[in-house]
């Protein structure tokens, strides 16, 4: 019974809870038990809120028993990236700076989840302040990839992705600044979508780079991600950059998966040298599946994408240097060296020196430099121009095709520690995902099989024009259908025998 719950899709669980075949409490218990059983090995969670989750589940059961009609995911548990404020629940951004801090308010996304009856199991691990591609910069230790515990689960949202792949939760929410939803999705064989910038509210999400950050859904299936997307998306007057427009029809698109007649562009710049042959092979096969499903495939050049990474590493740290200035030991969070003899300035300096990790400090320093008088035009100014050129590349491309596709990452999951001393290699993990953030367009990563080289998951990325998030799901669903196991199973189902108790043996 437990295994059937753990490996079920979120939409299935939601339907069975709504039909009162299952209670929200029993589903929540099953996942809490699973977390207790496997998280020692995976370390996806920084905080498990068992009491709060069960209370929420009881509330959902009561409402359903009273005959209230709730949404399709009511009673379904979810893992929340520890960057989202949840009133009263520890929220750390995986930093010593915020260790022990309990927000007095909830993020809009958090609140929408709670309002929809989604049960929040706890807060998942990430790179410190979401700065990283492996969760290795988390102040509380890395998360391990459920496909191979010696490897990274991606980052920054490695905790959320690993929680899905180890069946600790059927749903998760992440944030994507340069690939933090999609890259972990790719290397864990799960689905992750970064909505159109402004499509989901950033209010209450601890900021890394305001002009790039975007919350989004993570799940094991395309439909589950779409159902979650529909809950968390939509206009929020508390976020000025939130778009006041209807949520794109993502659920319909995920159910349809019909790509017949769709024009799909393969980005010629995202591939070739530096990409694992195994990744490229699976990507090519994925594209062939889409062609077989009726899509027209063309090559599209986006010449400025090659400058995206460099420009990103100026704009992002610039915003980081300002956004993280508020952590000064005055109002909340950690305070170091306040022994009554030191000045405010010294305590600020000691606290920031002690409580921020190296990657955070590195980005603050780079950003401070890039914004400095005399350097601003050369660095921040030029990077903004590149950003405009990338947006124009997208515009030109979308004049020819309905969506663009590429591998989600150049390589499969690398080994823990492998790139911590080679930052350029680390930063290159986000080579394919960054352009979408720079232009604000929606993009998702979908499982595209296992690399023949190392047997690790490969992701296929779909990028669409602003506000056409539904196209991302439509293509993702087509790929999922084409790659489905005879029993309809998705890629991550192959991990069930390893991570769930009493699961039927792999066929």
């Amino acid at each position: 019974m437990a295994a059937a719950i753990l490996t079920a899709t979120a939409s299935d669980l939601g339907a069975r809870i709504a039909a009162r075949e299952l209670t929200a409490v029993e589903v929540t218990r099953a996942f809490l038990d699973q977390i207790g059983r496997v998280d020692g090995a995976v370390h996806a969670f920084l905080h498990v809120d068992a009491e709060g989750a069960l209370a929420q589940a009881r509330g959902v059961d009561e409402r359903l028993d009273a005959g209230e009609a709730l949404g399709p995911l009511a009673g379904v548990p979810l893992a929340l990236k520890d960057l989202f404020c949840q009133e009263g629940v520890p929220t750390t951004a995986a930093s010593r700076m915020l260790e022990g801090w309990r927000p007095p308010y909830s993020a809009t996304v958090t609140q929408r989840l709670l309002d929809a009856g989604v049960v929040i199991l706890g807060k998942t691990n990430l790179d410190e302040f979401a700065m990283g591609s492996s969760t290795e910069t988390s102040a509380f230790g890395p998360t391990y990839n459920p496909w191979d515990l010696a490897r990274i689960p991606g980052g920054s949202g490695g905790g959320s992705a690993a929680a899905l792949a180890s069946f600790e939760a059927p749903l998760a929410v992440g944030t994507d600044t340069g690939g933090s939803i999609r890259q972990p999705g790719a290397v864990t064989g799960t689905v992750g979508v970064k909505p159109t910038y402004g499509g989901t509210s950033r209010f209450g999400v601890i900021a890394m780079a305001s002009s790039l950050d975007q919350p989004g859904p993570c799940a094991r299936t395309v439909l589950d991600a779409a159902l979650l997307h529909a809950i968390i998306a939509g206009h929020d007057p508390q976020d000025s950059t939130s778009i006041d427009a209807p949520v794109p029809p993502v659920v319909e698109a995920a159910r349809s998966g019909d790509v017949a007649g769709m024009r799909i562009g393969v980005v010629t710049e995202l591939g070739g040298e530096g990409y694992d042959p195994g990744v490229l092979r699976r990507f090519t096969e994925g594209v062939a599946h889409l062609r077989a499903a009726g899509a027209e495939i063309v090559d599209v050049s986006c010449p400025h994408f090659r400058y995206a990474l460099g420009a990103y590493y100026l704009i992002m740290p610039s915003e980081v240097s300002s956004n993280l200035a508020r952590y000064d030991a005055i109002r909340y969070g950690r305070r170091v060296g306040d022994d009554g003899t030191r000045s405010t300035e010294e305590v600020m300096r000691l606290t920031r020196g002690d409580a921020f990790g190296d990657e955070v400090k590195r980005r603050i320093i780079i950003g401070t430099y890039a914004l400095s008088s005399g350097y601003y035009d050369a660095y921040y100014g030029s990077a903004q121009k590149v950003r405009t050129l990338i947006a124009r590349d997208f515009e030109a491309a979308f004049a020819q095709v309905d969506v663009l596709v590429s591998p989600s990452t150049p390589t499969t999951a690398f080994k823990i520690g492998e790139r911590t001393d080679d930052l350029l290699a680390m930063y290159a993990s986000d080579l394919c995902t960054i352009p979408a953030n720079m232009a604000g367009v929606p993009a998702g990563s979908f499982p595209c099989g296992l690399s023949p080289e190392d047997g690790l998951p490969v992701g296929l990325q779909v990028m669409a024009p602003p506000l056409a998030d539904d196209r991302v799901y439509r293509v993702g669903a087509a790929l999922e259908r084409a790659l489905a196991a005879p029993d309809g199973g998705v890629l991550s189902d192959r991990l069930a025998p390893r991570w769930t108790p009493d699961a039927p043996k792999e066929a």
Partner: protein
Amino acid sequence: MSDLMDYDEVMERFDPALGLEVHVELNTATKMFCGCDNTPGGEPNTKTCPVCLGLPGSLPVVNGKAVESAIRIGLALNCQVASWCRFARKNYFYPDMTKNFQTSQYDEPICFDGHVNIDVDGETYRIDIERVHMEEDAGKLTHAGVTGRIHGADYSLVDYNRAGTPLMEIVTRPILGLGERTPVVARAYMAHLRELMVALGVSDARMEAGNMRCDANVSLAPKGAHVLGTRSETKNVNSLKAVEGALRHEIRRQGALLAAGERVIQETRHWHEEGWTSPGRSKEEAEDYRYFPEPDLVPVAAGASWVEQLRATLPEPPAQRRARLQAAWGFADLEMRDVTGTPGSIDLIEATVTAGASAASARKWWLGELARRANERGIELAEVGVSAAQVAGVQRLVDAGTINDKLARAVFDGLLAGEGTPDEIVAARGLAVVSDDGALGAAVDAAIAAHPDVAQKIRDGKVQAAGALIGAIMKQMRGKADAARVRQLILEKLS
């Protein structure tokens, strides 16, 4: 204290250049970027929320009413309004700032390229406005310890109630050629801005409460050299008198330095009420604020039709209104100057005239009896507790001869004590003038009998001596006698 040069001597040798940056706190109901109560004061840190406390994850949303006020201020200063502009972050660490950056505007102010004409003693001076921009105020620090400043404090207390209050910064271009009039024109400009803010209804503009504060920049250049010298910036000057005093002081201080062959250091200075300035932060090593466009806010796009709608809401320019009312009321320049010099009185007199009183009587009450009471209590005239309609009511009783001016004062006492309408107070306090010939005749007869020498003088034709008898009668009747009728009766009886 620095050496000072005689003011006139400075003027013989140097040309001053003036620049004024004025901060105006808006009186919007809510703060600049959140829904918190924007009224001043309150228990520390009670008017706060995750946004104005800069909590992790919080985001600003622009107060549309504040943008409206900024545009109206700009229009009243004859500025252009930007069709598209952005906020910018000004980055620096200070404990009164919850985010360690101030959300402000940098190279894209909402309003720019304006001017105002300031009248001083019959001369008109044009002040060019470079920009009007929007920003947020910081919290308030209280430093415990001997210094009263953050350095050397035992501890500091911080109150974020003010954090996020909408602030407008109005910046002039360098103002040249004012010569010895520099401090006076600066003061008149501040007075003009204050009047304008009140007329626009965008700020309480009370300098003593910090609603309006001025950073006064001044530099000296050798006479006729047509260059700009090194300036000092006296921060947060918060009264009209202080603006004039700080500039005079700085001009004299800089004059002494330059005459001695020393250089003026570019720095901020603090004004002391005793009439001097002291050095603050040196700006020689200019702080790098790393301004960049605020990514959490979308640009402000003020459409032409909206701007025109706002233009239509502008009040009559204060100078124009003053001229119009002076003509309508028939006041002499000197009389009008008293009105201008008493904040709020022009509105109160206008309302009193509208309520039926003559302009002269309205002026008499507001600038006389009622101004005296306001001064005694250290409050604004408008806060004195008597309405324009009540003043007109009192004057109606005077005009009708029911009471005289002296009794009117007692009516005001009654009004302030909440004893009812002027008519009710006159009745309840028995304040009506006695003009009944029977009662007055008896009093006149008694007075004549008591002062035979005076009576004889009047019989001899010295009519002015009647005053002594009138005085005696008024005293006896505790001011309630109809003085004119008493005089008539005396003269009738003694002719």
